[in-house]
């Protein structure tokens, strides 16, 4: 069975003042209908760029899709006509962003904005669209949706604004919903509400969800499958339990052992020394080599590929050579 959304060997470059840098270096991911894929990794590893590429929203220039493919139900999106991407965006693939305020228009009521999103892709009257918008606000758990539909974004709390974004994103029942750190700006109790809502929506609509996060706890609660990214590459990919219980790549192990997580007994936090190297300083070897305790000569000269050497696919020479 081929996946609903399949990204293969995607390469994205940016022109910067350091010259051309490779932000995505052969990323492959897929997600099936009704499934939640968690994408996790440190800041700058390429999570948002992967999402934006899928939405056809990479700023070009300075960005460029230098290779690879993104297929939605078999249809190639890389190089698709802008009009076609506009037709898909919001209808078949929708995205919710970290800070809803940046994607809501401050001068229109939230009801009007959702109604507009509906009319963009469906042939309904403005009245009907507004009624649908209210029903959606109700569906995402906004109290007194009739009244709230007439509010402007700034009149709502952060959690309510994110619900509005979700209402807008699901208004056309997208096949793929990408949530890029949808709760980072919110309190934990509100985050829990949003996560629960995403799960309900998935159950109702059968949407595939790509949840981008840096929080392994969120992955544990939300994801069926996980891709761990580092410096523009997927360095480990498997079912969530496999990655959480048997992380292979030293970076994935580090990410799990360095969290002071609830629900795990006291232990010294493992540190990952150093920082992610900037893209323009990436060399020929493994991008994690400088921070890794298992580095040998090969790690410094040859990029490891994602392959199932250990328990499940990881991109690591030490795993391949059975050194860890």
């Amino acid at each position: 069975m081929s996946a609903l959304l399949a990204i293969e060997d995607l390469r994205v470059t940016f022109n910067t003042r350091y010259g051309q840098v490779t932000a995505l270096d052969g990323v492959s991911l897929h997600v099936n209908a009704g499934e939640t894929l968690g994408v996790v990794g440190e800041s700058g590893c390429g999570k948002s760029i992967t999402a934006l590429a899928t939405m056809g929203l990479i700023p070009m220039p300075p960005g460029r899709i230098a290779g690879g493919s993104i297929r939605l139900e078999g249809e190639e999106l890389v190089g698709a006509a802008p009009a076609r991407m506009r037709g898909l965006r919001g209808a078949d693939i929708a995205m919710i962003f970290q800070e809803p305020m940046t994607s809501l228009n401050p001068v229109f009521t939230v009801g009007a904005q959702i109604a507009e999103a509906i009319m963009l892709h469906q042939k309904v009257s403005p009245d009907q669209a507004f009624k649908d918008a209210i029903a959606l606000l109700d569906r995402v758990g906004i109290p007194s949706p009739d009244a709230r539909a007439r509010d402007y974004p700034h009149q709502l709390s952060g959690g309510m604004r994110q619900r509005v974004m979700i209402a807008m994103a699901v208004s056309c029942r997208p096949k793929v919903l990408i949530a890029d750190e949808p709760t980072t700006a919110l309190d934990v109790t509100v985050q829990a509400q949003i996560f629960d809502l995403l799960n309900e929506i998935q159950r109702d609509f059968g949407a595939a969800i790509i949840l981008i996060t840096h929080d392994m706890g969120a992955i544990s609660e939300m994801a069926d499958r996980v891709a761990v990214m580092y410096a523009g590459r997927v360095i480990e990919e498997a079912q969530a339990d496999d990655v959480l219980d048997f992380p292979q790549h030293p970076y994935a192990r580090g990410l799990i052992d360095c969290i002071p997580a609830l629900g795990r007994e006291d232990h010294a936090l493992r540190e990952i020394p150093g920082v992610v190297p900037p893209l323009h300083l990436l060399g020929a070897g493994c991008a994690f080599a400088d921070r890794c305790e298992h580095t040998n000569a090969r790690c410094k000269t040859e990029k490891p590929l994602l392959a199932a050497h250990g328990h499940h696919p990881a991109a690591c020479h030490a795993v391949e050579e059975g050194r860890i």
Partner: protein
Amino acid sequence: MSTLLDVRDLTVRFAMPRKGLFGPRPWLEAVRKVSFSLEKGHALGIVGESGSGKTTTAMAAIRLTEAAGGQVLFEGDDLLSLSDEQMRAHRRDVQLIFQDPYSSLNPRARVADIVREPLDLMDIGTPDDRRARVEELFKLVGLRPDQLNLFPHQFSGGQRQRISIARALTTNPKLLVCDEPVSALDVAIQAQILNLLAKLKSELGLSYLFISHDLGVVRHVCDDVAVMYLGQIVEHASRTALFESPQHPYTQALLSAAPSLARRKSKGYVRPLKISGDPPSPINPPPGCAFAERCPRARDICRKTPPVLEDRGPGRVACHVPGPADA
């Protein structure tokens, strides 16, 4: 064991803009009669949602925000009733580190000067002493001597937080207020800073007032935890008691909301305890318990009478119907 800080009935109000020309001036009570104490060498975590008054409580406790009432006994002296002159003598005992290591460091100053600045300002030691102290602190927080003359932008986020910590330690403080010290950092870097803070606490016998919205972080660092809701402490207990047998429904809701590696989608995890809505407005707090309208256990009395923070088992709880989650 001796008490370093004893805060009693601390209250902070902010004046809000008048509605209309002759209307009464509304007040926002950001901190409402908060009491807690902190033992020497201990870390007290303050957790709660945004706007619950964590920062204001800590700032008022070290007199960087003006309190409307209450007492803050620091080794027995009431900081709130000291003259400015007397307060200055205590300044070196109390230091701060903030969430954002980017904006709290002067971008045009070399980091050695930044770290030395508190000594210069308080005129502590000879220039040679000060220089030696800065070098010693650099080593202590895990920075290299060859980095002394660099500027803040030449450091990563985690390194910048090390610089803030070094600066906070220059005067040999007894109390360090840490306001979301790792929230802006990637998890891998968070671990480096949390381990450093743990090491400093045990090696230097420091006490922390440690503010964080991340319960995992608080559990890792703190000996005791106070949970705030709308300007009040609703539960205060030892780490073990608070995390293993929380008594207040809000604490239970927080713990149930915080993502955990122990909860797996694959095992069909569904959050048992859901709370809806947002906290009420602090300008017109409800007459009874502030949590009542979101509380699954609320009764009539909860909406009418504010509960008092009372000793209960190992900790203190402000709730009319306290008890374990499933009761």
